[in-house]
């Protein structure tokens, strides 16, 4: 989209944020009664829903069973109404399969699968409205859902996207900023030890700018961690007061 300034002279982005500002985050845990764990997150206009089942016995082929760990089964799908133009295939196309693989990889690093040999943990994520930062919203929602399900995690998995415009790193990209074709970095971080569960980058970026971009994304993930932590504690308080009554 020619002529659209992603970063104005005063340092404001298209939606009025500063470069290091995250979008407004609202989250709820325990959305579904049926599932073991569920969570709903809204990051700006991006809405994601995550549901976790497990750990339970391996369904389907026994051959996938691992003798010392739990198997992680992820599925990422986008609702047909989630994008500006109606999506014909909610899942099964290459991009969704790739997202599924990334989700799986991220959570395999974070969940203590050694505690559940010969079991399976299912994580299903659905995007209800896509406005940029799909992967990050999925990962954040899935983290909350896993915490809600009571599955032990090494640490919160916080994900954030970052871009690079005019030598300034922009954090938490929206759809407009993503589709402009600039650099895009997605990072999934375990905040305490600053371990990167996933690093993914598209489009050209000079090597010298890489460190700056990664630092910006790391800081954003840490901010996100504070928000998610607050959400979990509030939810816990709510639930425990309900139990007491």
């Amino acid at each position, binding site marked *: 989209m020619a002529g659209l300034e992603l970063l104005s002279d005063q340092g404001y982005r298209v939606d009025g944020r500063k470069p290091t500002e995250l979008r407004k985050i609202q989250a709820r845990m325990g959305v579904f009664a049926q599932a073991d764990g569920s969570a709903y997150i809204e990051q700006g206009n991006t809405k994601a829903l995550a549901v976790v089942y497990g750990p339970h016995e391996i369904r389907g082929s026994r051959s996938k069973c691992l003798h010392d760990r739990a198997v992680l089964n992820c599925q990422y799908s986008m609702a047909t109404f989630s994008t500006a133009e109606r999506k014909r295939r909610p899942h099964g196309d290459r991009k969704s399969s790739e997202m599924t693989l990334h989700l799986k*990889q991220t959570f395999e*690093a974070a969940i203590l699968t050694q505690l559940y040999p010969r079991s399976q943990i299912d994580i299903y994520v659905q995007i209800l409205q896509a406005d940029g930062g799909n992967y990050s919203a999925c990962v954040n929602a899935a983290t909350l859902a896993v915490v809600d399900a009571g599955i032990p995690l090494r640490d919160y998995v916080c994900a954030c996207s970052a871009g690079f415009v005019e030598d300034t790193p922009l954090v938490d990209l929206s759809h407009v900023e993503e589709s402009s074709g600039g650099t895009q970095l997605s990072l999934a971080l375990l905040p305490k030890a*600053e371990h*990167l569960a996933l*690093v*993914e980058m598209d489009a*050209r970026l000079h090597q010298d700018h890489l460190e700056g971009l*990664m630092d910006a994304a790391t800081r954003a993930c840490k901010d996100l961690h504070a928000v998610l932590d607050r959400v979990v504690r509030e939810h816990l308080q709510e639930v425990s007061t309900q139990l007491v009554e």
Partner: protein
Amino acid sequence: MRETPLSNCERQFLVQAIAEKKRLDGRQTYDYRNIKITFGTDYGCCIVDLGKTRVLAQISCELVAPKMNRPTEGILFFNLELSQMASPAFEPGRQSELVVKLNRLLERCLRNSKCIDTESLCVVSGEKVWQIRVDLHLLNHDGNIMDAASIAAITALCHFRRPDVSIQGEDVTVYTPEERDPVPLSIHHMPICVSFSFFQQGTYLLVDPSEREERVMDGLLVIAMNKHREICTIQSSGGIMLLKDQVLRCSKIASVKVTEISELIQKALENDKKVRKEGGKFGFAESMPNQRITAYKMEVAPVDTGDIGKKAEDLISNTEPPSEIIPSPVVRAPGTGQIGEGLQNSWGLDENEDGEEAEDQTMEEELQTMDVKVKSVNKEDPIVLSDSEEEDVVVLEPKIMKKEVKVQASSTAASKKKKKKKPAH
């Protein structure tokens, strides 16, 4: 078919070797395997050998209608296929996660980085654009498919020539290669993937993992860069956790490697251009080395013969001489001698028939002097000297058998001869 699982001892061996900074093929940690690039007779066809991993790339083009939301841009289509000949683990039909992963990475590396100028592929805006199709086939899997595939794709794209097009007002003329020379694609830069494999939760790092190393690795980091030190793609996979410093260090290593590989590609392209211009022979047939079964060429392995004399002397002095057991001959009967015990003959008696036919005549004379007892034993025993296996095998009494064995060599011929003599009697 399912991949043969890696045995635990092999896995341990590999991991331990990596911990000691040793690789199976003798490479250093940051060394690439031998890269060989060969071109086919057509433009846009090339084979890349990365060690033993072999990828074939073929570019083709077609005039199609452009995408709705991008009417002035050409279309790039990538397809990487893992051929069943590459590895027994690859099955036909629905392909696995690996294919999705490789394809997506290739697409992101080459399409999103805008290495090809898609605007130049437009012929008539909104109606006709060139669709460039890159088909990659993995011919042999020996690890690190991604690197080989990216090198093959970009080299083939640089090598490809599309038909020339001219527009006069409303008329569009596409010239055949005979009418006008085909035109190369406009390529801005050459992104090349470099793969890093991590072991022991990120403690050890290897560049360009071979197939065995891939099996034991914890995770993989792929960084695609061009020689201008611009990173085109970063992708981490496998369930490992990385640190920021590791990623930065890998990007530095990648920039060095990419410069080397880019030079190699340029040289190969220039060579091919030169050969074609001079009218020499080119194509796959010329580039394949002559491999006759009768003339299997092995690389000469250097053997250190410096101190061979001393080594030999050491060996000789240290080893004990073999114990010499010379059995003393045993005289069973006058005229016979036996050296060595021999083994218990577990074959059927009929087996010895053939061998003894050629026995020399002297044996006969010796046997004349043998005990009559032995003879009679020979006659009376129900020895069936026939080839038929259906005959009952008669188990001889041990005592007699022993004697039989010992005099077997000398007397079977005799018994035959005796038989012959019998009718004569």
